[in-house]
């Protein structure tokens, strides 16, 4: 009965490859997010979708492309992976975009670039 689930949990790949991370939430939430957490534990938002529409797009290289096929899914595709992409990527969801909307996080995907 996992609320926000991400796959894979670990991803080890070579520089230059293309990879995808998937996220699904079963909370019935309308809004989903992708965050990047660096080695110092700093969490930074990358993207947010509300009802499948992009509402937040931070300064992220265009090698990163999110896709939301429906409200319950938000996937992240990364092209031409670079060493600096190594991090833990968290998916999150919230009921909506209004105030008092805590975000619920998945357990992360640890991406390691060789």
């Amino acid at each position, binding site marked *: 009965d996992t609320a*926000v689930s991400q796959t894979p949990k670990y991803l080890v790949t070579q520089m230059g490859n293309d990879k995808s991370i998937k996220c699904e939430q079963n909370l019935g939430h309308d*809004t989903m997010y992708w965050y990047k957490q660096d080695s*110092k*534990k*700093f*969490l*930074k*938002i990358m993207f*947010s979708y509300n009802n499948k529409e992009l*509402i*937040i797009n931070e300064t992220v290289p265009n090698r990163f492309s999110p896709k939301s096929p429906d409200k319950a899914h938000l996937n992240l595709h990364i092209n031409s992976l670079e060493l600096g992409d190594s991090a833990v990527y*968290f998916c*999150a969801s*919230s009921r*909506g*975009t*209004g*105030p*008092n*909307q*805590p*975000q*619920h*996080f*998945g*357990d*992360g995907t640890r991406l390691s670039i060789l």
Partner: protein
Amino acid sequence: GESVGLHLPTLSVQEGDNSIINCAYSNSASDYFIWYKQESGKGPQFIIDIRSNMDKRQGQRVTVLLNKTVKHLSLQIAATQPGDSAVYFCATGGDSSYKLIFGSGTRLLVRP
């Protein structure tokens, strides 16, 4: 720009004592504040939140205090237990509440 900072990167407390984790924020327009707990290998887990029209909110063994005058937020954990060992993040709702700005985290270590 907006920033959220923490006063101490690591806090070590004796089991059974109370813990206080502090957080400073810079954006006076912030109106939503939230604390998360992150255990090793897990995602951040919601603990408690507070709106700017309140200065105190209590949960189970946790209390969040908000001082808007000095832009300071704290999380108090009563009777700290080994299971409380984790990294704690504060986050603020900036221009839009759904966009959270996270602090850098405080690691709480509970000594038996």
